[in-house]
């Protein structure tokens, strides 16, 4: 059977579909959740999904640039999480609020 054979032997497609699924879950989290911390976590999930496709391409094309991109993406993700959480903690300490809708009312 051609169809089950494609499902069973894992190839590049499988990794890309997994990456797409995780990316969509993360995007849904960003769109639907209200808690700022959870939104930041969903962004981490999306970046992870991107990393999977980078590594999958790097391995299947035998090209190491993808793996280096993963290192860079991880650095950026960690930096983004650090600054985002510093902002969130600051706002929470002043207003006791993490709802993303509340942030629209911040001025100055």
């Amino acid at each position, binding site marked *: 059977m051609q169809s089950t054979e494609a499902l069973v032997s894992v190839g590049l497609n499988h990794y890309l579909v997994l990456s797409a699924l995780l990316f*969509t879950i993360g995007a849904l989290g960003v769109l*639907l959740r209200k808690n700022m911390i959870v939104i930041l976590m969903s962004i981490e999930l999306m970046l992870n999904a991107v990393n999977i496709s980078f590594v999958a391409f790097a391995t299947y094309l035998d090209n190491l640039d993808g793996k280096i991109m993963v290192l860079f993406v991880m650095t950026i993700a960690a930096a983004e999480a650090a600054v985002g959480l510093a902002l969130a903690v600051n706002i929470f300490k002043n207003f006791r609020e993490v709802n993303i809708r509340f942030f629209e009312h911040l001025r100055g």
Partner: protein
Amino acid sequence: MSELDILFYILSSMSVLFGALVVLTSSPIYSSLYLVMSMLSVAGIFMTLNAPFIAGIQIIVYAGAVLVLFVMVLMLFDLKRETKAFTKGRFSGFLKLVGAGLLCGFIAGAAYESVSLIMATSEEIPTNIAAAAETGFSPTTNSIKEISKLLFTKYLFAFEVLGLLLLVVPIGAVALSRVAGGTHAKH
């Protein structure tokens, strides 16, 4: 079905399941713990892709550092279960769901279609993974050395810019976290 395929299916279903739970759980502290599990599964997926160094970095940076910070911050907030965890509006919520679904479909479809094009450029690709699945990935150290050489030659500028970014980030975080003072005095 080889060992590699079984591992891929176990790990990918784990990562997708825990990833979905991150979004669906209304308690943020559980969300963060599910995210840890999802990250560890992704690290396992990197291992199946013959990238153990990336997997190790994933564990050190994400599971060992970034998510510890998330868990600590959520302990500060100590939020009770959110009664309305999701944004309001049935219609806009539906639109968002449909949009995300379409996005997923497009990405998956595009990926599926493009693979044959990419693969057409180099013929012998699938064999290296298949052979590795049979014999076990051995030359780990060499591949890390290759990555390192590339990082310090071709990507040297990006690397130094990252160093600059990593200098700026703690300065910003310290400035933001000042209890008193900062740009605006506490009112």
